[in-house]
């Protein structure tokens, strides 16, 4: 049987970064084909190529056995390939019917025929067993129902291949199992589904074929029926388990930050751990497992609903980042553009943002000379280029911007330092510098909470690793037992 869609030796680079290399796979009609891999293995890029968002740099894309070149997502949709992305692409202020029929509204002389619009939307919903009322506004729906609307839209566009990216990540168990039923039903009707997911148990329960990506390469394609969780984990990680090296010298001291039963409905629950003096405690887990939410709650950026914390033995419950900072807690955000940088301000202003009292007189007047001097000391220590406090931070590379943010928090002299994805999107040189800084901090007695989706980073820097799954801290691994395989096992199963 000819594959509906096939990739033949496809490669993709972004700048100097090769994200996909020589990947070949075939998606057959009437089948569910899963793609699994660690964060950054190239799954999203693969999806984006299939859905016409990116062009491959090398290799061929075949549709119905013929070489095809997708000019963009609309072209892909016209050829029967529809993608449901993690960020839904719906219009919240329009009705369900309008969302399903967008770009295909039945009309006469440019006037939309509403009755037919709603009837056709209703048919599309009925085909996947949904009883949603197409005349209702979309905004009243939960994430799960919105996903159903997206799928109905894809079907109404006569999609033959449906691409789903982490469709169950934001769903409750009940909604997730309903969604999987919908997909099985589509398969029975002859459609093909490409299913990208981190959730191995789910993948094994639904996929006919499973392709495993690692570092941009396709390492294996298995039959769903004969694969096991162990196989998948080993293939995704790809190396024999390495023991945690003696990464940070010196044994951690007494408990500094103790958290018990932290929780917030719909975000995380039952998170308990202790962070010791001079320790790096890794927070590992899949994207969306609730690690950042916990980190932000500890820092007072978001509310904590249940649980309690102590800092050096005293009750600790900051109501704002301001309070947390005053008590010696720093938080390096995972999203430096949206939540970290002041793009139009200078490096100097960016660095001193969290420690202005130190560069102001008692009456609150800033002292430009001292401000510049203080900022320069940290910029020099982290080797920021250009080494000039007056340059606008927007002009710097990603790695240097990250160093500027790190400098901001080093200047605040934390006792507890929460670093969230400290090396996301930075070059190798900056990454090494940031890792060295984290280790130095721990050695000097700072307690570090390292949230990272880069498993190798977590393992290389952490004394212990707390593994999160679906909003819960499922296991704290001691150095001796923490390796890529054990972490993946707790994170994904």
């Amino acid at each position, binding site marked *: 049987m000819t594959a509906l869609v096939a990739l033949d030796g496809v490669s993709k680079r972004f700048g100097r970064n090769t994200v996909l290399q020589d990947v070949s796979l075939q998606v057959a009609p009437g089948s569910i084909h899963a793609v699994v891999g660690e964060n950054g293995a190239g799954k999203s890029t693969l999806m984006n190529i299939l859905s016409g968002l990116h062009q491959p740099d090398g290799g061929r894309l075949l549709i119905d056995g013929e070489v095809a070149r997708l000019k963009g997502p609309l072209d892909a949709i016209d050829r029967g390939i529809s993608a449901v992305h993690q960020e839904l692409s719906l219009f919240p202020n329009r009705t369900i019917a309008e969302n399903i029929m967008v770009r295909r509204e039945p009309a006469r002389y440019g006037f939309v025929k509403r009755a037919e619009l709603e009837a056709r939307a209703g048919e599309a919903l009925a085909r996947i067993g949904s009883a949603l009322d197409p005349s209702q506004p979309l905004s009243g729906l939960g994430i799960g129902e919105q996903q159903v609307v997206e799928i109905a839209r894809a079907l109404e566009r006569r999609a033959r291949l449906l691409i789903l990216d982490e469709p169950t990540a934001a769903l409750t168990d009940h909604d997730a199992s309903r969604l999987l039923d919908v997909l099985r039903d589509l398969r029975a009707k002859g459609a093909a589904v490409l299913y990208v997911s981190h959730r191995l148990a789910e993948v094994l329960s639904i996929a006919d074929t499973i392709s495993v990506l690692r570092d941009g390469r396709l390492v294996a394609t298995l039959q769903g029926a004969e694969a096991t969780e162990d196989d998948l984990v080993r293939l995704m990680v790809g190396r024999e388990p390495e023991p945690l090296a003696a990464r940070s010298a010196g044994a951690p001291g007494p408990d500094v930050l103790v958290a018990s039963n932290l929780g917030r409905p719909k975000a995380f629950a039952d998170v308990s751990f202790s962070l010791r003096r001079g320790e790096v405690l890794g927070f590992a887990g899949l994207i969306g497992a609730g690690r950042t939410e916990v980190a932000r709650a500890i820092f007072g950026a978001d509310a904590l609903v249940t649980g309690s914390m102590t800092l050096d033995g005293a009750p600790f419950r900051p109501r704002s*980042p301001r309070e947390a900072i005053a008590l010696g807690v720093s938080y390096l955000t995972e999203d430096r553009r949206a939540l*970290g940088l*002041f793009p*139009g301000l200078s490096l*100097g202003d960016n660095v001193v943002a969290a420690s202005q009292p130190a560069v102001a007189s008692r009456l609150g007047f800033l002292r*430009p000379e001292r401000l510049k001097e203080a900022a320069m000391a940290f910029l020099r220590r982290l080797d920021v280029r250009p080494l000039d*406090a*007056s340059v606008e931070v*927007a002009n710097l590379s990603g790695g240097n911007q990250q160093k500027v943010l790190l400098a901001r928090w080093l200047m605040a002299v934390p006792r507890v330092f929460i670093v969230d994805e400290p090396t996301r999107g930075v070059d190798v040189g900056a990454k090494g510098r940031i890792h060295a800084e984290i280790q130095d901090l721990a050695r000097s007695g700072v307690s570090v909470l390292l949230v990272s989706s880069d498993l190798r980073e977590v393992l290389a820097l952490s004394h212990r690793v707390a593994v999160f799954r679906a909003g819960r801290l499922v296991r704290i691994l001691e150095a001796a037992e923490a390796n890529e395989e054990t972490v993946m096992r707790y994170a994904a199963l």
Partner: protein
Amino acid sequence: MEEVQGKRAGVGREAVLLATILVLAAALSVARPGFLNSENLISIATGMVYDLPIAMAATLVLVVGGIDLSLGAVLALSSVVTTLSLRAGAPIPLAILAGLAVAAAVGALNGLLVTRFRLAPFIVTLGTMSLARGAAVVLTSGYMVAGLPPAFLALGRERFLLLPVAIWIVAALLIAGHTLLLRYRPLHDAFYVGQNKEAARLSGLRADAVTTSVYVISALLAGVAALFMSSRLGMGYARFGELAELRAIAAAVLGGASFSGGAGSILGSALGVLLLALIQNGFVLLNLSIHWQNVATGLVLLLAITIDALRRRHAGERA
């Protein structure tokens, strides 16, 4: 100092404005020697006395990432409250205080709605604009409030070292405002909040308090303008300051403020007011139709922001 404070537009913008002003002034003085006449210069300065505090206010709000359309209406309401208080027999200081208090109250309402309820500043201040202007009309039934005590009128007409006192006060406000915005920490925080409110909060700044304070300070500046206007013109009136906020925003943008927040300079905005005032004066001196004046003002503003956008895009491409 400028470089460390790192604003987007910075010194370059102010220098360009100043050069434009000097060229325009030179051209006017050649075409009409009467331009340099001290009475003409003082009349230009006197005319700017009302616009400058409003422009300062508009700048502060733009820096913190907002916009304030209620400034002209606050001016009117404040003038009406002060003059009505005087008519009711209140002592001058108390009447002035009442006018400033009502201005501050509108500013606080703006700040509260923008921060606590996360409403869009444009809509909030559009509402309070209508509210304040409407209240001023209701309080006066649309009539001017005249018959004020001579001592109050003297405030706006008194001269000190050849210049009206109001000019000295506004000059002092400008210098203080410019310095404080760059150097005084609580006010300088407006740059952080305007650039990235959430990053400011995560850096331990009181983003909401900064924003609210800025709206209150701005409304107070409109109250100051109201004081000058009602004492100089000898009355309070519900139609004072119509469109003043839009002229002020134009001047602030000429001076380097940005609608995306986190940029702007009070010195730059003052130069912007001066440029607009010179254009107006030129039209008068050259006997040109007053109707074309708005066209010219509009063209200058569009030209300035277009050049600025092109320059910024160019800089972005090089980076």
